[in-house]
């Protein structure tokens, strides 16, 4: 077909994508990816807020603990972490607990653990950057108004920081969604796994992988547009300097 002039003899057959059971595999894979990504995202954001804030408090031991968490977890490749959480961590539990995990989706929950802890460390850095972008005067003003350090963080610093970090946080969220594809190496049947499955059953690699790429693209574009909308809706007027339109 279109690649004929290059001398290739590949025959395109897009119907493999909506033939059953391939379509079911793709849909199941997509649902698993969405489940994995959303659960991991919620835990990662929570961990990120906690540890990101901890890195900025004026109390040294807390900062050291938070720094240790961040450096430890973000400096090892996620794939290695997934193997650790699946093959290594469960061995630390007593036998009945392990057996319970095994009967209840250990592959999925190991992937959730690995992805959320790794991305929690990365979110912590994003949030720390957001908090530290806020002038110190805000903290001093809060303290001098009679609020405790914790209350100042909760009522003043963190809300502003959350608005400041929307762009890098969007970036990290998209990374998290894409990193869910690594879970296929520990047996989680998510979208990339489903696409590879179709590829091995039909040998139609281009169709199968294009469909996976297209679905990831649509998902990521949806997330970025939602984040853009959020940024607009929750913006505090006058907080960010908005330039005039760029001139070409």
């Amino acid at each position: 077909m279109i690649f004929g002039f290059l001398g290739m003899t590949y025959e395109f057959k897009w119907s493999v994508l909506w033939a059953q059971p391939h379509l079911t595999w793709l849909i199941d894979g997509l649902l698993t990816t969405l489940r994995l990504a959303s659960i991991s995202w919620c835990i990662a954001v929570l961990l990120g807020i906690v540890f990101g804030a901890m890195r900025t408090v004026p109390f040294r031991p807390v900062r050291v603990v938070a720094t240790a968490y961040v450096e430890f977890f973000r400096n090892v490749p996620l794939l290695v972490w997934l193997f650790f959480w699946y093959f290594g961590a469960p061995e630390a539990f007593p036998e009945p607990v392990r057996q319970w995990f095994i009967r209840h989706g250990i592959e999925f929950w190991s992937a959730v653990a690995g992805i959320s802890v790794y991305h929690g460390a990365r979110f912590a850095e994003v949030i720390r950057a957001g908090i530290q972008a806020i002038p110190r005067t805000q903290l001093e003003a809060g303290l001098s108004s009679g609020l405790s350090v914790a209350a100042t963080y909760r009522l003043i610093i963190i809300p502003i920081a959350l608005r400041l970090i929307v762009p890098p946080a969007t970036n990290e969220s998209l990374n998290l969604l894409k990193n869910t594809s690594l879970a296929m190496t520990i047996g989680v049947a998510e979208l990339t796994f489903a696409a590879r499955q179709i590829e091995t059953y039909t040998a139609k690699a281009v169709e199968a992988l294009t469909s996976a790429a297209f679905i990831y693209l649509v998902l990521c574009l949806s997330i970025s547009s939602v984040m853009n909308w959020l940024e607009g809706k929750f913006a505090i007027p006058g907080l960010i300097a908005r330039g005039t339109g760029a001139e070409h």
Partner: protein
Amino acid sequence: MKRFGLALILSLIILSLAAAAPAQTQSTLEKIKNSGVFTIGVRNASPPFSFINKQNERAGFSNDLAELIHKAIEKKLGKQVKMEMKETSPATRIALLTSMSVDLITETMTDTRPRRDSVDFSLTYFVTGADFIVKKGSPIKGTKDIAGKRIGTQQGSTNERVLREKYTQAQLVTFPDQAAAFMALQQGKLDAYCNDAIQLWGLKYKSATPDQWVVVGDWISYEPYGFAMRKNDSDFRAVVNNALMEAIEGEEYFKLYEKWFGTKSDVPYPMNQTFKTFLLYQVVPK
């Protein structure tokens, strides 16, 4: 800005034309002759066919047969070529073959009709069937016991397909390769691991505690092994098949079989008389 973009696109098209033009239409023998390298696809952990032994070298029954094919290629081309080994896995091997990264898949690939749509196979050089490996004392003795149990397979293998299509009651867990699946079995994350019987025997005898593992089952599928090569390449296929036929006729094959499956080897597996007859009948007259 616009002109730069146009120039960029034009140069990309020209580059891709130039790069793609010679690559796809060469036959395998031409490619080996021009590059001087014959690449085979091997495995890291599929004893005794294709694996890395304790001395950290690549070894195995399939690897040794590939060496015989290597010599036949050298004889046919009349020049020395280097044999390189590249790791492949069930999920990646056909793609690596068609993209010309490897010339011959010589690990443990089952010859099946759907696969023949994508690749060509040599003569059958080994037959086996799929069985299960379980921990000693496990209640699983065959396919009637696997309903609701966690059974491991390799992604992209024929075993995965059989379990998915015929034994839907079993809970299928797939892994990228045998090493990961076996580790999961050892840790109790799987109730059984399904693979070709001979490879399960290899796993059992190569493990640290062979007595702890039992191979059970009754060949839930028929798995004839063949070497896989690109389609529409009859000259290369003739060289491979001739090399295998010479080996079977001239006893080389049986010597290698004795080395890897004989009574003194790590995986004793006496040759079935039916299989021997089948092998001999595959050798067409000179």
